[in-house]
């Protein structure tokens, strides 16, 4: 388990992909984004965000675009034996996230089925694999990448609102207590759900950091990758 300081989007995504490739270990990483960055879903069209002044990156995971500003992001990288393909894998992680948030004073649940807005923004459109507050506002969004018999689960927990951002819910406004304990509590609940334990790492192992640097140069820092669709 890693709790990383805020970093640029290209580095954050490169580290996550290196953790996906690190088949020797299970990983849970928490981090934030500096500067605030828009991440596109893997298949999204970059043209929809042509006027955005903020940095753009393209995630390896699916779903819609996210403005990563005042949020806690997690990356869970484990074998598919623990999280087989299909919506059920989101459910297992979401139940752990909901239990952790309840422990810190916030009740969230999957949304009721409703019409889709068609917005390119992830948080504008709650779907069954998301978590919403009691008003139906999405506060946790998730996506996955599957490769090499492993799965990378990405999730964003919205802590605060961004004035000009698309987010519509925020955990702090819902009474989140002990925000600094959030990674630790989430890690405990996710470990229990997976039947595994975490050991806190001081940083990335050398070979994983080297791979992350290579992945950043090959993909996430390359505008051709971000604008490829």
């Amino acid at each position, binding site marked *: 388990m890693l709790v990383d300081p805020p970093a640029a989007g290209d580095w954050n995504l490169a580290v996550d992909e290196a953790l996906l490739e690190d088949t020797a270990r299970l990983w849970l990483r928490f981090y934030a984004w500096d500067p605030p960055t828009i991440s596109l*879903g*893997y*298949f999204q069209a970059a043209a929809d965000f042509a006027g955005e002044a903020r940095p753009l990156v393209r995630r*390896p*995971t*699916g*779903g819609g675009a996210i403005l990563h500003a005042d949020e806690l992001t997690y990356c869970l990288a484990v074998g*598919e034996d623990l999280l*087989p*393909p*299909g*919506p059920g894998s*989101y459910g297992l992680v979401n139940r752990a996230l909901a239990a952790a948030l309840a422990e810190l004073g916030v009740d969230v649940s999957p949304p009721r089925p409703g019409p889709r807005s068609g917005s390119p923004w992830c948080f504008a459109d709650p*779907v069954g*694999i998301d978590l919403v507050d009691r008003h139906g506002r999405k506060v946790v969004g*998730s*996506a*996955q*990448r*599957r*490769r090499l*018999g492993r*799965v990378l689960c990405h999730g964003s927990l919205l802590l605060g609102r961004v004035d000009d951002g698309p987010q519509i819910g925020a955990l702090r406004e819902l009474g989140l207590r002990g925000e600094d304990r959030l990674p630790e509590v989430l890690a405990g609940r996710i470990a229990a759900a997976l039947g595994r334990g975490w050991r806190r790492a001081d940083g990335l192992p050398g070979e994983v950091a080297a791979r992350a640097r290579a992945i950043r140069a090959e993909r996430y820092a390359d505008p051709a990758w971000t604008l490829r669709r």
Partner: protein
Amino acid sequence: MSAKDCKYLESHEWARRDGDLVVVGITDVAVEQLSDLVFVDLPNPGVLVTQGEAFGEIESVKAVSELLSPVTGEVVEVNEELADDLDRLAKSPFEDGWMIKVRPDGDGGWSELLSAEDYAKVAAEGGH
């Protein structure tokens, strides 16, 4: 043609001989597992594919998964209609939902693929 005429990878891709070519797609088990297919990205004709390595990608329920090639060879035809009509894949994974046709390099690794019977056992155990 039916699922019994095909050979398989554990990761739920099927391969079927069609003259000199091998037709490739994903199984009904994969379609059911993935559910709610949204995007598919397939290679262009002329691309070389390798058995067990990715030839394309598919997104379902915000999850992007790789499609692995059952055989080694050259892509000679792509189901161009699939990207705009993933219902074809959902409703008819072994026929209308085919993905690529490959001219195999030699046997392309055909003899290493799972039989329908062996694939059924893998799928029943949960597969990949």
